[in-house]
């Protein structure tokens, strides 16, 4: 049941999508939110479809979210967990791709440590490929669910002021958010130590705040990134304690804001490092809404990518209501 719909064959990133396509995904996610509120959280839409979750990096929350999305659409899912790159462990990505194709998989959800891995796979197999995070490049479904959550709260995205706080240099979530939000007309800023911002950040169309206090004065919402310990080559910042003291989002800092800031975080959180607990659990945190929206957004993406085959549509034209 793999096909080409309004999004093309794959979802590799938000940089390649138009504002209309992003809007289509967000609008499509609305009815899927409702399904997750039902007693029977299932629709037969992708019945008979086979989806492989190919996770080369450990991730419970994203994988589980995709699994729920797939199962709620009645698809058959298989989880394949592998660790390491092509070089270090067993089968190369190319061979993995060929094997999947030989098994006639309809869709692959891939998370991999190398930037460009999702595209690498998509160029070599006919199945739909969904990027669940490739290296430091993009994490499109996260960007989409962040936007959906913002839209839920503010009713719109254009003109909103969003500041992404933290390790932008190593963050695929940050990149997807920057591309997606800008396409939807929002104003985007980043805030963090310069050693954790890409050197070319000035060319990415965002404002840079050196100090978190200034970001808080300006923003409507903060998207607080996890300080990625596992990705940092040692030495970008001296210590977590200093990071928290200089850049941490605390209740005291938020109290000095001119308005109530919405707080987002892609998770998992380092409480007491980039975000304090009373902020994470506070009244303006929508972190749990992000999780709920994540399943709906992923269902929408799966639904839209598994577009039907138009040539069969011609033949079936006689049928109707």
């Amino acid at each position, binding site marked *: 049941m793999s096909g080409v719909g309004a999004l093309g064959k794959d979802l590799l990133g938000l*940089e390649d999508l138009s504002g209309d396509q992003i809007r289509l995904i967000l609008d499509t996610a609305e009815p899927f939110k409702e399904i997750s509120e039902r007693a029977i959280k299932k629709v037969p839409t992708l019945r008979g479809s086979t989806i492989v979750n190919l996770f080369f990096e450990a991730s419970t929350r994203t994988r589980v979210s995709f699994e729920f999305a797939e199962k709620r659409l009645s698809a058959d899912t298989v989880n394949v967990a592998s660790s390491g*790159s*092509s*070089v270090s462990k067993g089968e*190369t*990505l*190319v061979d993995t791709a060929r094997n999947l194709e030989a098994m006639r998989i309809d869709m692959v959800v891939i998370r*991999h440590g*190398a*930037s*460009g*891995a999702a*595209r*690498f796979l998509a160029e070599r197999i006919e199945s739909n490929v969904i990027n669940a995070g*490739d*290296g*430091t*490049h*993009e994490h499109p479904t996260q960007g989409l669910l962040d936007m959906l959550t913002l839209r839920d709260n503010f009713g719109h995205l254009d003109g909103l002021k969003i500041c992404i706080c933290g390790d932008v240099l190593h963050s*695929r979530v940050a*990149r997807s958010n920057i591309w997606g939000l800008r396409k939807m007309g929002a104003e985007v800023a980043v805030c963090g130590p310069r050693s954790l911002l*890409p*050197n*070319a*950040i000035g*060319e*990415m169309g965002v404002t840079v705040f050196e100090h978190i206090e200034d970001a808080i004065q300006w923003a409507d919402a903060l998207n607080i990134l996890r300080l990625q310990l596992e990705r940092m*080559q040692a030495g970008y910042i001296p210590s977590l304690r200093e990071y928290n003291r200089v850049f941490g989002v605390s209740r005291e800092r938020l109290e000095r804001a001119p308005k109530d800031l919405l707080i987002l975080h892609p998770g998992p959180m380092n409480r007491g490092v980039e975000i304090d607990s009373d902020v994470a659990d506070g009244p303006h945190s929508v972190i749990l809404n992000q999780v709920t929206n994540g399943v709906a957004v992923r269902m929408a993406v799966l639904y839209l990518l598994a577009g039907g085959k138009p040539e069969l549509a011609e033949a079936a034209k006689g049928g109707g209501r």
Partner: protein
Amino acid sequence: MTTPATLLRGGRIVDPSQNHDAVGDLLLVDGKVEAIGRVGEVRRDGDALETIDCSGLIISPGFVDVHCHLREPGREEVETIASGARAAAAGGFTAVCAMPNTDPVTDNQAAVGFIIRQATRAGAARVYPIGAISIGEQGKTLAEFGEMVSAGAVAVSDDGKPVVSAQLMRTALEYARTFGIPVADHCEEPTLAANGAMNEGIVSARLGLKGIPAEAEEIMAIRDILLARRTGGHIHLCHMSTRGSVELIRWGKERGIHVTAEVCPHHLSLTEEAVEGYDTNAKMNPPLRTADDVAALQEAVKDGTIDLIATDHAPHHYDEKEREFADAPNGIVGLETALAVNLTWLVHGGVMDITTLIERMSCAPARVFRLDGGTLRRGSVADVTVFDPDAEWTVDPERFVSKGRNSPYAGRTLRGRVELTVVDGRVIHRRQH
């Protein structure tokens, strides 16, 4: 079949070493240039004469590539000295210098001798070995420059790797003076460049790839230039890629420091944008940089700040390149596309004339590395390249003579093509029609 005499007739003979540029005939006898004259005026009586019609073509001193990787010993499945020497011939090169990062490293006289022997057996382009600066290219102990030179090495380098220790580079520059050879350095500051996969800039930020900043090259370039000043040695800077490096070389030359530099065709024609889509055939070290860097390098080759053009031909196996970008090895092949790329971007692109290009591809490399060739003076070796500067052809790596297929120019239509390559008066390559 060797004939004692060959006449190349009716071509435009361009020899920058003699300021010669005229249509005429070139006579080669017993492996040496015998005479240049106007068409029909060069005569030879007696022995059999092979006449080759070169009308519409350019006849130049043979091209010399001072920087290529022939992978033998150690990686013969990817290239051998024979296949590399033949690929060089197909690219119009009458001589190449082979870098020592083989397996085992070419760091002693036996290894140097092996390469010479393999090259002689191949009977294609001349292959001059470059010996390692340090044993095993480990950057610790000096290799035996003297022994390697007497076995046939023409320079020393730890290419593939930078010489990290300034003290070692200093010693190498001093020690090399005894043998009159250049020390060639791959300029890369290892802590800045670590794990980098492409140029650091907006493209790397968008693609989520770790970048190598221009400073990683420039810091080592100026270090080497300063050490050349202190020691009076000859430093040759490999594959320059940034505007900043060009400015530093200019600074050094203005002060009479013995620094020479090379640039590769890909850094004169492609930018970091070639990496879009994570194309591993655009991955090499130093990486492709910005349009501004390309412009600075083109200008530098034109005005001579950068002395010569070398290919850094680096074949890799298809499987190695068919990988996630960050894991793919660095390097592209270049012997068979160098002339066409240079003609298309530099000459047809209006940056310089053909004479200057030939100077940078033949005369200068021979002069800087003190090799035979690079000239068509009477009595010099009969190493000649004949080429059509305008012929259009589409690059198809499957048809390369080299075993390597990793070229970023695949599918592109280029202008300029080698017709004939002659070494020692013997035709070692003739284009199939």
